[in-house]
């Protein structure tokens, strides 16, 4: 299969009336799919959340397992065989960079797939070096995998997949959790690889513009798990534009319809400010120092900067969660409302009505078994009576479009729903300041618009907002004040 040039024989995919129903679900994730992907074709697979795109990729990679995980109908063939029987012909890269790192050293991690395929030892290491070279990951083989950035981890996962020399490369939203530089790195690495190996390629992604020039075909799945469009990329995108927009796909040339950022009110009071601040997660490791900034009331501030610049740490320090390692954070007298000016001195319960912080990982924040109870956590801590609690949680549920899911377990929600719920848990306490870390990671276009509209509504209602974000569209919509935490200094600019 493999020769010295590293070229491979591209795989052929054939689905005939194929469908899949996850164990324990009533409705099929996918149903009646007829699809032939010829060797060497490059396919972008689009569709709304829950349309079964990932299910199809998992099945092609042969990781669906047996009857206990779900029920299969029709046939799905890879080079004419059941995908589970030809492990290694297809390899899959998933969305979450952290959960794909398997071993502690870069070289071992890339070699892992080759070992599983039974490749002889003296052939593995040349493959590993070549794969790392292809994805442009220029680190020693014994480099620690936990020291890599998100973009580097995704390229590591890609290298691990490539070292297996697959005839079919499958990517499941590989750039959803990455900053723009990381997205670019991964896209370039994929382009180089495909040009050299000629492998068949299927990618699932909400952001069409990343892949549109790399793929030769676009396939669209509908909400009911059936195929609704298939053809030349630009033709499908323009013909299916409304369908795709309704499905939450980021279609090129269709910026989200939300109001642009506007300057903070001229005479705005400052709610929260930092002087000569030094920050770090541990007291012996200062990440940045000499930072001074101010958050004007009833305005939205967006904080940007490269990975590792300390944006999240700064946000957590402003939010009274991490102690400043130098300098001070001070709240206005009105925000402090009788307490000392330094938020880190406030008790947890006192923080609730003053500063609400929403973290990057929704899963770190859930403490209750249903959405309803999750929203009741803050009102309970504040000692609100049952009537007020019910009114406030009811309002938030409706505003976030989660009322239908009030009795669902927070962990079972989709990524977008989880994100909105964490925002809801903060605003139900009606804090004067809301701080958000990467609120739009992994959001499709529809949930993105809902979230940004909701946040703008809060600001209009007098809330002060600070968001850490890599997202340029988010900054355009909510960057009333834009702070850039560059590698050398913190720069500030106001919206025009």
């Amino acid at each position: 299969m493999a020769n010295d040039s590293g070229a491979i024989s591209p795989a052929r995919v054939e689905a005939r009336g194929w469908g899949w129903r996850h164990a324990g679900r009533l409705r099929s994730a996918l149903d009646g799919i007829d699809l032939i992907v010829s060797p060497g074709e490059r396919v972008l697979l689009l569709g709304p959340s829950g349309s079964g795109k990932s299910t199809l990729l998992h099945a092609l990679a042969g990781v669906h397992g047996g009857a206990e995980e779900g029920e299969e109908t029709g046939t799905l063939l890879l080079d004419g065989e059941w995908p589970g029987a030809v492990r290694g012909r297809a390899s899959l890269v998933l969305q979450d960079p952290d959960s794909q790192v398997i071993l502690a050293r870069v070289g071992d991690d890339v070699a892992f797939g080759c070992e599983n395929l039974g490749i002889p030892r003296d052939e593995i290491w040349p493959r590993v070096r070549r794969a790392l070279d292809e994805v442009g990951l220029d680190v020693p083989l014994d480099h620690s995998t936990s020291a890599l950035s998100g973009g580097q981890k995704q390229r590591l996962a890609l290298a691990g997949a490539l070292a297996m020399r697959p005839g079919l490369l499958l990517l499941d939203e590989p750039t959803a959790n990455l900053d723009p530089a990381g997205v670019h790195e991964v896209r370039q690495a994929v382009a180089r690889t495909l040009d050299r190996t000629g492998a068949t390629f299927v990618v699932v992604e909400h952001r069409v513009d990343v892949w549109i020039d790399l793929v030769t075909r676009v396939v669209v799945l509908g909400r009911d798990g059936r195929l609704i469009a298939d053809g030349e990329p630009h033709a499908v995108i323009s013909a299916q534009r409304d369908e795709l927009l309704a499905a939450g796909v980021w279609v090129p040339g269709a910026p989200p319809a939300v109001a642009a950022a506007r300057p903070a009110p001229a005479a705005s009071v400052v709610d929260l400010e930092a002087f000569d601040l030094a920050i770090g997660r541990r007291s012996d490791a200062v990440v940045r120092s000499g930072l001074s900034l101010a958050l004007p009331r009833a305005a939205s501030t967006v904080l940007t900067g490269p990975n590792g610049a300390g944006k999240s740490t700064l946000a957590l320090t402003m939010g009274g969660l991490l102690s400043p390692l130098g300098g001070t954070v001070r709240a206005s007298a009105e925000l402090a409302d009788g307490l000392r000016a330094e938020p880190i001195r406030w008790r947890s319960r006192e923080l609730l009505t003053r500063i609400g912080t929403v973290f990057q990982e929704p899963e770190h924040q859930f403490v209750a078994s249903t959405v309803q109870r999750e929203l009741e956590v803050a009102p309970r801590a504040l000692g609100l009576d049952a009537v007020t609690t019910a009114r406030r949680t009811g309002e938030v549920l409706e505003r976030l479009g989660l009322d239908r899911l009030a009795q669902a377990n927070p962990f079972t929600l989709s990524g977008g729903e989880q994100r909105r719920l964490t925002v809801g848990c903060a605003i139900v306490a009606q804090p004067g300041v809301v701080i958000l870390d990467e609120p739009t990671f992994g959001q499709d276009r529809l949930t993105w618009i809902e979230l940004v509209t909701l946040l703008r509504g809060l600001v209009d209602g007098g809330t002060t907002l600070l968001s850490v974000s890599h997202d340029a569209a988010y900054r355009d919509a909510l960057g009333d004040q834009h702070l850039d935490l560059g590698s050398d200094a913190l720069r500030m600019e106001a919206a025009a």
Partner: protein
Amino acid sequence: MITVAHPRLHLVDRVNPVSRLAAAMLLTTPLLLTVDWVSAAVALCVQLVLFAIAGVTPKVLIARGWPILIAAPIAGLSMLLYGQPEGTEYWSFWLARITDGSIELAVAVTVRVLAIGLPAVLLFMNVDPTELADGLAQVAKLPSRFVLGALAGARLVGLFMEDWRAMALSRRARGIGDHGVIRRFATMAFALLVLAIRRGSKLATSMEARGFGSEHPRTWARESRVGWPDAALLCIAAGIAVLALGCAVWAGTYHPVWA
């Protein structure tokens, strides 16, 4: 604490981690069978000399062995105060009595904790988990599914520590950070367990996606070997154990735990 970056050791560094595990067991198991001070003292003296020859400096000994160095006198002190009273009594207060018998027992226990703990810590000082896994699968022939599953799972521990920190901060942000330590610990431990299961199943999918768990026989990118350094270390370990027990029998202090 003082940290010393990977001190190099003669001989020991060339020994397969699996052989080091075997050597540690060979050396320490016989020492668990008796509670006398002679066997432990002989073993400890020989060990200290050999580790010094191998390149363990006092600084390394303190940096790596401090938990043992602290635990040993604490274990000894409890024996000194509460050990079986025997012979002359020197001091007593309520239940605590210092006697000839308890002094002897205290010395024996202190030296024994050192003689068992220090070689275990020092032999495993430079062991990389990946190399240990290579050895367990290739040399000890443990099933690769089990070994690699454990290795990949162990890597998640670092992530769990970050999860724990983030969860503690988020509880403060959510207004429930003022609860008592015990209640907060219990709820966070449960939440971490849920998260751990989710991370574990994601990891399993990633491993499967790279062909792990198929019926196909697996190869190993790095060969795990054993050679004469392994044999030498095992002989030294067995030699120390025999010498220590022999001296105890000769001195008449040999005292098996079951006697």
